[in-house]
């Protein structure tokens, strides 16, 4: 490596960060992070390396997600993870559907149709709860 090297503890932490990442991305991020660390003071290098370590799982998720990535989806409220969403009524964006609306969780943004639809269709099909 050309130029200043990060201090040993920072390099050691960086080694762990890189090992967390998928194999295809390791070389790129090793070089990128080492460059950034080398430009900082020694205490800042340690802080930066710890920050990278804390974010390494999120970075791995972003690099390995096979689904279409969504932004900021890695930190969902524990209530939403347990299915305890907090829905509020939201009017439909479609002008033809004025007054119909949907429900949207104020914490995670998840949308769902109003519950009356499901109940009505279940009743109409003779499968209403009893």
């Amino acid at each position: 490596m050309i130029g200043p090297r990060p201090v040993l503890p920072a390099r050691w932490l960086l080694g762990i960060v890189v090992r967390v990442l998928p194999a295809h991305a390791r070389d790129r991020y090793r070089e990128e992070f080492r460059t950034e660390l080398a430009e900082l003071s020694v205490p800042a290098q340690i802080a930066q390396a710890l920050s990278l370590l804390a974010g390494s799982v999120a970075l791995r998720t972003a690099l390995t997600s096979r689904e279409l990535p969504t932004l900021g989806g890695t930190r969902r409220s524990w209530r939403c993870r347990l299915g305890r969403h907090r829905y509020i009524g939201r009017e439909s964006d479609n002008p033809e559907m004025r007054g119909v609306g949907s429900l949207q969780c104020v914490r995670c943004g998840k949308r769902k149709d109003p519950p009356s639809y499901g109940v009505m269709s279940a009743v109409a099909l003779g499968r209403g709860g009893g």
Partner: protein
Amino acid sequence: MSAPPPRMTQTTQAVLRALLEEPERQLYGLEICAATGLPSGTVHPILARFEALGWLDSAWEQVDPREQGRPRRRYYRLNANGISLARDALARAYETRTRIVGRLRPAGDAV
């Protein structure tokens, strides 16, 4: 088929705003951290997601590290499509936040 609009956190919006400040200018990780006030561990996963979405291009700095006396940096820049999508996404996020806050204010309006 177009990708669904991304759901954005405050940190994601901060990164987008930093990249949109001067869209033609390339920024590297530390500059984005300085512009947003966010740590690297938060910024890099967001940058990786933007790259995966195709909004952001990244490339190694075209310099000779021996001449510069330092290793090359990885620079990021929103592409033309990314600039327009990012502006739309920020506007939509602002609109959504305003709408939700407006709906939460009147007592007893929540379902």
